C-alpha cells in the first residue's frame, strides 16, 4: 500500500495535465475544422484554427517525448492491490496506447502538412518556421496519395483517441468513486492525498 499512496512527481503531473488539455483542444478543433474549412462562412476562422492546431499538435509531440523520457527514467507509483488481472492489463494497454497516440498522431499531422499541395509553412506559434518533413520535393501525385492516406490515419487515430480517453477517464473515476483508492488523487495537482 505504500506505493499506492505515492504521488507522481510534479513534473509528471504538470506534463500529464498540459498534454491532457492539449489533446482535448486538438480533438475539438480537429473535429470542427475538418468540415468548417469547406463552409464559406467559417472558412477564414477554420484556416486560423488549422494554423493553431499545427502549433498545438507539435507542442503535444514535444511534451509527449519529454513525458516518455520521464517515464523511462522514473519508477511510477504502483497499481493498488485488489485489481483483477484483466484490469491491470487494460490499464497498462491504455497507457501504452496513449504514448503511441501522443507521439504518432502529431507525426501523421506533420506528414499531412508536409505533403499538402498548399505548401503552407508551419509557423510554430508565430515564433519560427517549423520545417517540413523531407517529402516536399516528391511528385505532386505522390504527395496527394500520401496526404490522403495520412489524412485517413490522422482521423482514425482521432476517433481512437476519443475511445481511449473515455476508457482512461472512466477508469480514473471508477478508482476514485467506486474502488475509493488513490489512483486519481496521486495525479491531481492540488490534492495532497486521497481521503
Amino acid at each position, binding site marked *: 500500500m505504500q506505493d499506492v499512496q505515492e504521488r507522481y512527481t510534479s513534473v509528471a503531473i504538470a506534463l500529464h495535465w498540459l498534454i491532457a488539455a492539449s489533446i482535448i483542444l486538438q480533438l475539438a478543433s480537429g473535429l470542427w475544422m475538418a468540415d468548417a474549412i469547406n463552409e464559406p462562412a467559417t472558412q477564414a476562422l477554420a484556416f486560423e484554427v488549422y494554423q493553431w492546431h499545427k502549433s498545438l499538435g507539435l507542442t503535444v509531440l514535444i511534451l509527449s517525448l519529454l513525458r516518455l523520457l520521464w517515464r523511462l527514467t522514473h519508477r511510477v507509483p504502483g497499481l493498488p492491490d485488489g485489481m483483477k488481472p484483466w484490469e491491470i492489463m487494460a490499464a497498462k494497454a491504455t497507457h501504452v496506447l496513449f504514448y503511441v497516440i501522443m507521439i504518432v498522431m502529431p507525426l501523421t499531422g506533420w506528414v499531412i502538412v508536409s505533403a*499538402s499541395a*498548399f505548401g*503552407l*509553412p508551419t509557423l510554430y506559434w508565430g515564433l519560427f518556421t517549423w520545417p517540413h518533413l523531407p517529402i516536399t520535393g516528391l511528385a505532386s501525385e505522390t504527395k496527394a496519395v500520401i496526404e490522403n492516406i495520412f489524412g485517413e490515419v490522422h482521423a482514425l487515430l482521432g476517433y481512437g483517441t476519443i475511445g481511449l480517453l473515455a476508457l482512461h477517464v472512466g477508469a480514473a473515476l471508477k478508482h476514485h468513486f467506486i474502488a475509493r483508492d488513490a489512483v486519481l488523487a496521486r495525479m491531481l495537482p492540488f490534492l495532497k492525498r486521497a481521503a
Partner: protein
Amino acid sequence: MRSLLIPALAVFFATAGLSTPAFAKAWGVDPERSSISFSGTHAGNNFEGVFEDWTANIEFDPAAPESAVVLVTIDTASAKTGNALYDGTLGGADWFNVQTYPQARFEATGAEPQGDGTYKLAGTLTVRGTSVPVSVMFSANDSEAKADSTVVLQRLDFGMGAESDPSGTWVSLEIPVTVELVAKPSGI
C-alpha cells in the same frame, strides 16, 4: 527599389552606344514615389503586398513616343505581404516558383499618344515563363513621367495556384496589380 536608379543608368550606359536611337532619352525612376503592389483575397480576407526589388529601364522621348523602350524586371522572391504565412507560400513551386522563375518581366516598345500628354504603353508581362499582353497608361512631359495604373491579372493565366487552388476557393483568381511610377529624364 532603393537602388533602382543606378542599375537603370548602368544598363542604359552599357547599351546606349549600341542600339539606342539617337533621340531616345533614358529616364530614371524615383524610388521614393514608385511602387509595384498587388492585392487579392484569401479565405475572404483581403491581403496586399508589394514587390520590394525591381528595376525599370525606360527610354522615352515625348517627341517620338513610338521609339519608347521599357523593360521592368521584378524579383519575384521580393513579393511581401507582411503576413508570414502568405510570404512563406508565395515563393513556392505552385505560386511564383522563385527557384525556377526568379524574375518577372514587363517589356514594351512604342508608346501610343492618347492626347493631353497621356500615353498608352502596350507590352508583355511574363510571369513563370508565360506571357500575357498588358497595357499601362502614363502621362509625361519633358521633365516628368507618371504612371498610376491598375491591371487586373488572372493568376491562372500564369498557372499560379493551378495545382493547390484552381477554382479560387482560397485565393481570388483576380489579382489587381498597381504600378505607381514617377520617372525623370536622366541627367536633369
